[in-house]
């Protein structure tokens, strides 16, 4: 019996080590390629290490507007998270803790709309942004995205659980409805807000299609659009692309390793039925 268990343990370790090895290859290759000259990335030899590691890709990367792209992505993610969370939790509070006319119908319409892909809105949005001169602006990038039905849905699921007694006690003490939201409901919802913030920031950080359409000049590109432009041009620059990719992935991975539990609860928020 004991032998049997040890065999199980060992075979599981072997199995997962092999799977993890396969999953790490792309990261390894990204880092290694970022230290290779462009000519060495596609060669007739398989170089597991760069022959002579070079920093040229990183140096050249900073000659592109890479830092600006980084900044733009941060602005996009920051604006999306901050405004999106505020809007979603404020509306979610109303939907979870008040009774008002048409409440359920409005809520169902909002959640049902989430099933339609953004591709339906993209062309009208592009025309609207053009007519209001919001193309190529941060406002145009962030504003159409923040009324996120999924965010509203998760915030509501969480806020339903807040005890009515706490809210009523504050009412008796003379707190206004706004104060009840801002001073009581929001602080209680901190775990939900953290989870949603992670979800929203990853979504903004990784999105390509939307910023590709809104941001039209190189200086306004987000990281994803900027990186994609490095191979979209006449002379693809894979070395730069790998260096940029590495620097773009790094903060998310470090952040993840530090706050693993929050990440996982944020990303699985959708799968657990409330």
């Amino acid at each position, binding site marked *: 019996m004991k032998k049997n268990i040890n065999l*199980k*343990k060992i075979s*599981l*370790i072997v199995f*997962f080590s092999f*799977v*993890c090895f396969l*999953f790490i*290859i*792309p*990261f390894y*290759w*990204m880092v290694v*390629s970022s230290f290779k000259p462009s000519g060495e990335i*596609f*060669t*007739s030899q*398989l170089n597991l290490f760069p022959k002579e590691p070079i920093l040229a890709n990183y140096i050249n990367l900073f000659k592109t507007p890479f830092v600006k792209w980084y900044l733009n992505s941060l602005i996009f993610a920051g604006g999306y998270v901050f405004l999106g969370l505020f*809007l979603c939790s*404020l*509306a979610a509070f*109303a*939907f979870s803790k*008040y009774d*008002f006319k048409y409440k359920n119908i*409005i809520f169902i319409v909002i959640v049902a*709309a989430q*099933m*339609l*892909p953004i*591709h*339906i*809105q*993209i*062309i*009208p949005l592009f*025309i*609207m942004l*053009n007519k209001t001169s919001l193309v190529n602006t941060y406002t145009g990038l962030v*504003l*159409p*995205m923040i*009324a996120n039905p999924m965010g*509203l849905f998760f915030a509501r699921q969480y806020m339903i659980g807040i005890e009515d007694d706490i809210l009523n006690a504050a*009412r008796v003490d003379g707190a206004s*409805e706004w104060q009840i*939201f801002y001073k009581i409901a929001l602080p209680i919802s901190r775990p939900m807000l953290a989870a949603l913030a992670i979800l929203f920031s990853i979504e903004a950080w*990784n999105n*390509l299609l939307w910023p590709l359409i809104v941001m039209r000049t190189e200086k306004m590109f987000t*990281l*994803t659009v900027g*990186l994609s432009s490095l*191979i979209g041009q006449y002379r693809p620059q*894979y070395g730069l692309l*790998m260096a940029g990719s590495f620097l773009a*992935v790094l903060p998310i991975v470090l952040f*993840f390793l530090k706050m693993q539990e929050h990440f996982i609860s944020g*990303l*699985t928020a959708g*799968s657990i039925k409330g």
Partner: protein
Amino acid sequence: MIRKILNDKKKAPWLFIAPFLLLFTVFKVGPILYSIFLSFYKMKGLNGGEFVGLNNYVDLFHDSNFIKAVVNNTKYMIGTMITLIPLPLIFAVLLDSKHCKGKTIYKAILFIPSLTSLVIAAAVFKILLYEGETGIVNSLLGLIGIPAQKWLISPGLAIPAVLLIATWRWTGINMIYFTTGLTGISKEMYEAAAIDGANMLQRFYHITLPLLKPVIIFVATLNLIGGYQLFTEVYMLWNAGASPDNGALTLAVYLYKTAFSYFKLGYASTIGLVMGLIILILTLVQLKFTGFFKDEV
């Protein structure tokens, strides 16, 4: 005035939902209606166009590119059902075993790809899928005796190439969904079944699978919706989505090209609407078929 409303329990909720509702109406409902309107027009640039009735829809169903895109999206979607449900499920079940050591590390390594932007994932795989014998994927295949494949050149391998990226990118997150589902199943149930003489496969089939059904439906729905929205990987792997012989042309790529390369905004809106309709109908059919609505009652 606002202060007065904020003290009124009847009126305050309206003020609370107002900003959300306003943006939702302007940027979601409005554009959807506008899109329907556009689909009846042949647009000339951004300003005005000619009313063409249902012509865009008629053209669409005779458009070989559109049909190709639907077929490609469907192939990809079915592919993700075959890889992105069983694989993460098996990983999750094995990780759940008490004999498994080092779970946290495995989970982290398998999960990190899910945090990687698809732009970056596709960029790296563009190098890994290099068609020479020294390409990484080809080298690995060589180890088990499979000859080098012309991954990004041969049209028939376009969708499998995208599927490979999808497997790397989504296995971890789906595995976490299943892991979360598994923590809800009590260990006693397995022990009781084991005492009754059920072997591992029987336990998996009679306990794990039925109890994980909601999570499986959830993941399948994500696969379905994601399958028809495929864009970034194709855009990156082939220069702005120009795959060989349109072997990986997808609805989203076709919509993007129609709108922003050919400026046929009316026709592109039609593509978007039909795409939305396909996703909506398939999702509802799938949820009905799997009995999702019954669970709710």
